[in-house]
């Protein structure tokens, strides 16, 4: 419950903050639109990470956050001339890193599922005192 409240507060704060950034910064209007979209996507991912209990859903939320990052990178690359050359390369590398992370994460989730017979992270509390 607390996580849901904190998550929705974070969501609200980020959306409002990013909207303000869009209004305040002088640059190109349409670059700001992409950045705001990226910010909203990132915040949805963050909310998903904080509100979900299932390890696989949390992993999906992290992937969503990385996709939001990619969107902002590609937007910067297409609007800022000095970044035009390497923007798509950076986006590709971020996708590769995301794939590597998903591989490692799924294998760890598989290993803990065999031990605990549940994907719910709330049940992983053997060490908390």
């Amino acid at each position: 419950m607390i996580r849901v409240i904190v998550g929705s507060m974070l969501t609200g704060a980020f959306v409002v903050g990013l909207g303000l950034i869009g209004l305040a910064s002088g640059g190109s209007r349409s670059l700001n639109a992409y950045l705001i979209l990226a910010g909203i996507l990132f915040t949805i991912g963050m909310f998903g990470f904080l509100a979900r209990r299932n390890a696989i859903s949390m992993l999906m939320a992290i992937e969503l956050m990385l996709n939001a990052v990619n969107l902002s990178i590609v937007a910067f690359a297409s609007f800022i001339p000095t970044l035009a050359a390497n923007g798509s390369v950076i986006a590709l590398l971020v996708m590769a890193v995301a794939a590597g992370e998903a591989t490692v994460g799924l294998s760890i989730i598989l290993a803990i599922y065999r031990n605990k017979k549940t994907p719910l992270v709330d049940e992983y509390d053997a060490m908390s005192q």
Partner: protein
Amino acid sequence: MTPDLTVIAPLVAAIGTAVAILLVDLVWPGRSMAAVIVALGGLGLTAAATLIVGSMAATTAYGGMYKLDALTTFLDLLFIAIVAMTIVFAPDYLTPRGLPVAEFATVLVFAMCGAMVIAASADLLLLFIGLELMVLPGYLLAGYHKSDSFSTEGAIKYFLLGSFSSAIFLFGLSFVWGLSGSTNIAAVASTLTTVAAGEAPFSPGLAMGFAFLTTGVAFKIAAVPFHYWTPDAYQGSPTPVTGYLSVGPKIGAFALILRLFVEALGPMKEQWLPVVIVLAATTMTLGNLVALTQDNVKRMLAYSSIAHTGYMLVGLAAFAGGQQRGLEGLLFYGAAYSFMNLGAFAVIAALQKRAGVTSGLATFAGLARREPILGLLMALFLLSLTGIPPTAGFFAKALIIVAAVQAGGWVGFLAVLMVLNAAAAAFYYLRVVVYMYVRDPASDAPALRHGALLWGGLAAATALTILFGFFPGLILGVIGDAAKAIAG
């Protein structure tokens, strides 16, 4: 050979080492001794290559993405030493539990490659790739004992919060490079110089980028309040892995801080100094206070490693306060902390050679009588972690405190807080020493026989802990060059 290939020789040697360990394990499966020998030989070659390349003039390669300077060489040698010592004391813990040594060494050497990339990056993209190369093998190592529910539980907490913080870090990075118009660290620094001088606006997007970068890095170094993954990840992991995790990724993340905050964001240091002061104060205080209440030595050392993060952040704050000696203190602290902490974990791993032995405080009762040498070494490492002269830990703390006092202002206040914290930390470190020397042994099991490898690793850790304490001048020159390379 082209200059580009010459410069990355240490990295090539490290990757070659990792592949060679895999090949040896393919030819003679399960021979842990063969894997360890190949690993140590390869790491020796890597260290030699680092020294040879490091004696050349500072240069950049690959279109200005890869950088070779005194800091690169110093950090590479430190990473090699950390990984070599971990590989040396791991078999004592892994073999009785049926865990393969060769895969452990391979994954560890790959993680070291990531740390070396961080140390050498002159580009924000390379910095991020190096960070991921370093932490992904770390997640795997934390869950290395995959049939043990503690190990996998530690691994999943480490993985989820680690990749969450990576995404936050990357989001900040994308805003910084988008708004400064370049991924090159030197170019970002010169753009930010104009921002700091008031010639260009300090846009809200850039401020947001800074905030996300700081949060992401604070997760990686386990600074309070972003430290929640640390105790479980450290307690759950197999003991040699805990030793590595408490040292390798932490120094790697500090390398990232040196390249990112000191070099790229250095012109804006007035803006990030207050954040570092708050982080340092809360991190060392909370880490020490919670460590006081722990009965499990591994968990206690996890909280104490949080406190040590706080001490190193004081060095960073002293640098931002105008004292370059703060950086020297940070680097010296990183080296001293690595060897004394690895030594302490090596002793715990050696005690846990007998299956079923926990890392609880009771394991240490009467250790000085059962295994006098191990007890003596553990006492030495704990005294060094406390900061009692003439050990390396004392000199490291002294360097940072002096730099912080000279910086003055709020950083001077941090120095006072650090002294108080070091005094409080003595309680929980010395409690273990009291258990070892005063309490009666809990069981009368005969002393274990340990291999020559473990004694070799312990001897190296002991020698370095004492050597840096008696003769800190041995590495102060190298550290001074390294600090000068980034602070200019």
